[in-house]
């Protein structure tokens, strides 16, 4: 008899699940291109090269990102700044900057290695291409424009939500100098347009309070 009750219990589970799904109470899949889920705060998407608010490039061509990259997918060549018309505040700037997105494992070590916060990650992940050459992002595609907007390889692609390019990843803040506990709620660098202009990181207590059902 135990077998029969177990059998009926099983039927009950599937039957009730079906009713819940039909009435829309329970459904874990989303219809992706039409329904975009909100991405996690520290999502690792494609990279972007930032600028200072005055339009100067942050990248100083130091190649630390290339050195840190475990997948060996970043290629940087620095060039001396023209003293009359510098591209970056440092001695040099990233003259050639290429990331092979087919090799990249989106670990974020380049972001961590960067001394000037020049390279950060965005939340955009729709980067499929039809040939290998398109998967190598060059300086033209990575560097943000002077108005703070970020170029995208396929701006007309209906799948790609280009707004994601402007939402930076919070992880950089946790690992940056401002990420230590005493700097919670403090914004260490500010005023840069686009991905670099973010709100101060909320403290852990505040995050806990927000996730509670009655708080926040």
């Amino acid at each position, binding site marked *: 008899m135990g077998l029969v009750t177990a*059998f009926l219990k*099983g*039927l009950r*589970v*599937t*039957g009730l*699940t*079906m009713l*819940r*799904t*039909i009435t829309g109470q*329970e*459904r*874990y*899949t989303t*219809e992706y291109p039409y329904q975009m889920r909100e991405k996690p705060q520290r999502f690792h998407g494609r990279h972007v090269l930032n600028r200072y608010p005055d339009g100067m490039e942050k990248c100083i061509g130091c190649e630390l990102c290339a050195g840190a990259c475990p997948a060996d997918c970043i290629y940087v060549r620095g060039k001396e700044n023209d003293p009359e018309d510098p591209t970056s505040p440092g001695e040099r700037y990233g003259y050639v900057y290429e990331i092979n997105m087919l090799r990249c494992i989106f670990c974020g070590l380049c972001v961590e290695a960067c001394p000037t916060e020049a390279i950060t990650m965005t939340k955009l992940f729709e980067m499929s291409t039809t040939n290998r050459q398109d998967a190598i992002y060059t300086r033209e595609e990575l560097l943000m424009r002077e108005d703070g907007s970020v170029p995208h390889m396929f701006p007309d692609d209906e799948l790609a939500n280009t707004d994601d390019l402007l939402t930076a990843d919070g992880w950089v803040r946790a690992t940056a100098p401002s990420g230590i506990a005493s700097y919670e709620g403090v914004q260490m660098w500010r005023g840069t347009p686009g991905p670099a202009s973010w709100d101060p990181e909320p403290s852990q207590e505040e995050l806990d309070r927000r996730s509670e059902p009655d708080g926040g």
Partner: protein
Amino acid sequence: MNWAELGIVVLRAILVFVLLLGATIINVWAERKILADMQSRIGPNRAGPWGILQTVADGLKLFFKESVTPRKVELGMYVLAPFLAVIPAFLIFMMVPFGVPFTIGDYEVILQGADLNVGLLFILAMSSMAVYAVVLAGWSSGSKYPLIGGVRATAQAISYEAAMGLAMVAVVMFTATQGEGGTLSLAEIVARQDGTWFGIVPRWNLIPQAVAFVIFMIAIVAETNRAPFDLVEAEQEIVGGFHTEYSGMRFAMFFLAEYVNIFSMSAIAVTLFLGGWNGPTWEGTVPAFVSAILPTVWFLVKTYVVVFVFFWLRATLPRLRYDQLMSLGWKRLIPAALTWIVVSSIAIGVRQFGIPWS
């Protein structure tokens, strides 16, 4: 037989064929959709409204695909097996009455492929034939996994056909007490389930033959090689079982046969136990054509309830192990069916002749 009668026969056959193909298109889609709902997913939703054309799209794709023939196959049997699967599947449904007979002019039209007086026997014969397709497909593929699938099919079919036949015997015995003499004709079996007991309980065989119904349901799930008895295919252990080496249209025919079999077997369960097309027609209160169509509607509704049970079982139960399958068949179902025949015949005897010692 004149031309008009011949035309009616041909039209009936075409009607059954179209009904089964239409039902298959719906069934494949419905199964995927229902399984998706039971697993909190969405299911096919691209082709047509709610994805209802998904089966048509799949069929077209399979139609245009190459039917690969591996080098080591026994060519004759390999090509023949898919047809052997499809033909019995369609023939089974030929016996099932799916609507009330009506007359056009001088001719009486029965909504049934053919009213054989040995209908039940024919069904048993055809469902045994279907096993040949699986066995021959498995053997002629010249490959190990299909052979295992085919051998499994043999043992499984023999075990569960016995239980299925014995459950049918109980129904036939009971039906004999409901009218003049015994019958194996499905139209007659349906006709004898007309009416009600005590004014409210429908006179379906389900109520006095509930045990036989349970045995029959388990047996037909096994007969059609559906989960949890799908050891013949068992994609997790033996790739795809008997149809591993089949592709394109030949595979599609096995697929079609499986779903036609589900529908036909459900229809037979409805015919034997759930009163066939019997149901309230509200004659006189609704337009005449509505009460003429209602029996067919009742039949389809009941059949789809049983078909739904097939899908429900597939979503719920894990596949049986081979020894579990055998022990359920031989140690549980066949003894249960035999016991039920004895019990049921004693009950019938007591009702007819009274208690012997009183």
